[in-house]
């Protein structure tokens, strides 16, 4: 393993990350209704959508959260932009603890600096507003510019930035294709000149050729404006293309947090390996795939111990009893007893191996 000596994950190394999330958790009430509890003797139950997630993103970098439906990745996104209140844990943006801000004015000033792009560009744009007004809304809300002409000029600049023309500003969302609508969402997100963007599956609803356009645009904007991204996706190939760091989530918890480069070359956690195993083989290398068994259990009633143990080929008695915590291993954070005890056979995924003409 050609790893530079003493490399630590950037979560620990970076002096002042732009965003730091510590022990973030969000529980939802999944109890039966009150009367049913009273009459039928049910009791309160909590769905632990996010259960103790910590990471940090250095300025100008991209951290991706990857996992299957129900792993809590979108809940993390919503917690960070303030659409949910955390059950516990802290969110620190540029050194400021977001939850400590009480004054409306302070909250709003901070809010301007981070924005979100949603998955579905059909649901996230108001169909009755012209594109120009959709994009100008954050400018008006935050009072960034005064006067029609100034706002008009700024929206045109934003449209150009995402590859649309000034004339598109006068149209309505339904006149655009999915990819163009996602460009409009990006323009709106950029309108308040944020430093940080949460991108919740921004290309999952798009066709591949359009996905490529949007991913390229996002990378260009990051380079040009120095943006920091939290990128949420279930598609590992997209994550590989976009990220500096990757966090793999399973049932509300991080099971591995590593540099993208090392994660894809040397996945540690058995679940990460499973996910890598599912990536279709476009090289037609004839790689024999280990069939992946089982499904994600219900987050209302997660298995005891390590929540992945029912699907894990390496699980033993300890995994069934004791929940593993994230610990440093070969420079990466991983929550797995088998890795810690060294009883996991090394897996080097040589996914880059076959040269173009195999």
């Amino acid at each position, binding site marked *: 393993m050609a790893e530079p000596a003493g490399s630590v994950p950037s979560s620990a190394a970076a002096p002042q990350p732009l965003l730091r999330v510590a022990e973030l958790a969000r529980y939802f009430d999944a109890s039966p209704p009150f009367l049913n509890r009273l009459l039928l003797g049910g009791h309160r139950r909590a769905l632990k959508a996010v259960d103790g997630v910590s990471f940090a993103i250095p300025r100008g970098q991209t951290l991706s959260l990857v996992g299957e439906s129900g792993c809590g990745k979108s809940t993390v996104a919503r917690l960070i932009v303030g659409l949910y209140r955390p059950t516990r844990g802290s969110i620190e943006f540029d050194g400021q603890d977001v939850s400590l801000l009480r004054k409306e004015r302070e909250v709003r000033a901070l809010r301007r600096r981070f924005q979100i792009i949603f998955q579905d560009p059909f649901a996230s744009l108001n169909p009755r507003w012209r594109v120009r007004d959709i994009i100008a809304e954050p400018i008006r809300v935050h009072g960034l510019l005064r006067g029609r002409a100034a706002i008009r000029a700024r929206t045109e600049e934003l449209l150009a930035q995402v590859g649309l023309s000034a004339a598109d500003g006068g149209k309505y969302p339904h006149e655009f294709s999915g990819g163009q609508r996602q460009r409009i969402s990006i323009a709106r997100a950029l309108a308040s000149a944020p430093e940080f963007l949460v991108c919740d599956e921004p290309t999952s609803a798009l066709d591949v050729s359009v996905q490529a356009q949007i991913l390229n645009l996002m990378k260009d904007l990051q380079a040009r404006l120095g943006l920091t991204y939290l990128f949420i996706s279930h598609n590992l*190939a997209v994550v590989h293309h976009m990220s500096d760091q990757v966090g793999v989530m399973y049932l509300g918890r991080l099971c591995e947090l590593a540099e993208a480069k090392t994660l894809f070359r040397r996945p540690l956690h058995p679940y990460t390996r499973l996910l890598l195993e*599912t990536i279709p083989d*476009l090289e037609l290398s004839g790689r024999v795939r280990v069939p992946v068994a089982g499904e994600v259990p219900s987050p209302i009633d997660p298995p005891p111990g390590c929540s992945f143990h029912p699907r894990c080929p390496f699980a033993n008695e300890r995994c069934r009893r004791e929940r593993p915590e994230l610990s440093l291993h070969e420079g990466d954070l991983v929550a797995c007893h088998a890795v810690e005890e060294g009883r996991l056979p090394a897996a080097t995924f040589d996914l880059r191996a076959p040269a173009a003409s195999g």
Partner: protein
Amino acid sequence: MAGPSNRPPLLRLEHLRVEFPSRHGTLTAVDDVSFEIAEGEVLGVVGESGAGKSITGAAIIGLIEPPGRIAGGRVLFEGERIDDLPYEKLRRIRGKRIGTIFQDPLTSLNPLYSIGRQLIETILTHTALAPREARRRAIDLLAEVGIPSPAQRIDHYPHQFSGGMRQRVVIALALCANPRLVIADEPTTALDVSIQAQIIALLKKLCREHGTAVMLITHDMGVIAETADRVAVMYAGRVVEVGPLREVVKHPRHPYTVGLMGSIPTLRGTRARLAQIDGSMPRLNRIPPGCAFHPRCPRAFARCQHERPELISDGPSWTACWLYAPLARTGSDG
């Protein structure tokens, strides 16, 4: 026509054309599509939203919603023309000799009936089995598609199954009359990645064991690469390239296929940028003359703008592109 193969074709599409009349004139969703599927072969039909791949699948089994209609061409199944059959006769073929699997397993199962009832009903309709034997066959099928403890699960309702398990039930339903052909329209799109891999493996295994041919409709090149023997690439209602899997994936010929393959992020190397095809697929009422791809094509030349290319043979692949016409490059290329 398209795609020669050494086995006799099970399904043959000849110049199929599907039209939808609308207020703004007639929209041609499928325009002169021809291909073949051999016995036991998996043909992947790939394309982006609006390419006409699902409509092609629906046309084969006569499920085009009026006012849409087959406006031209023929569909031959086991050598027999089926596109002009009366409704009742087509219904006998559908389900018995051609099975279907749709994207969303929730909508293809009736929520009010147990899955056993739905399976048994289908088996009784299409085979000569007695009810008791039909139930036994249903349990066998559920076991075959990997439903744990099928003897109990058979009496459960669709909502009691997870998405992946439901799709397994739908596969059992499609296979219960031992069809010769299964049309699978985006069978894994609604599923999580790890479940997706399971369903693809299952579909592949079952069809190999039963010798069932599959028309696999998907937007996901990854699914195609894992499953198909041959691939047809569709764009704006037309087939632009047909060929063996390896040829299409590794040596794509049509500029659209080249762009499509380049735009897929892979784990091989880190390219700073993905290859992108600028613009987007034309709407059906604004399909450009000539080659439908020419406004987005980096290699288009004069001929592409007004003359539509037919599928032209180039080695084992067929490509609808003037670059592959014998005299193409005499023009002003690039």
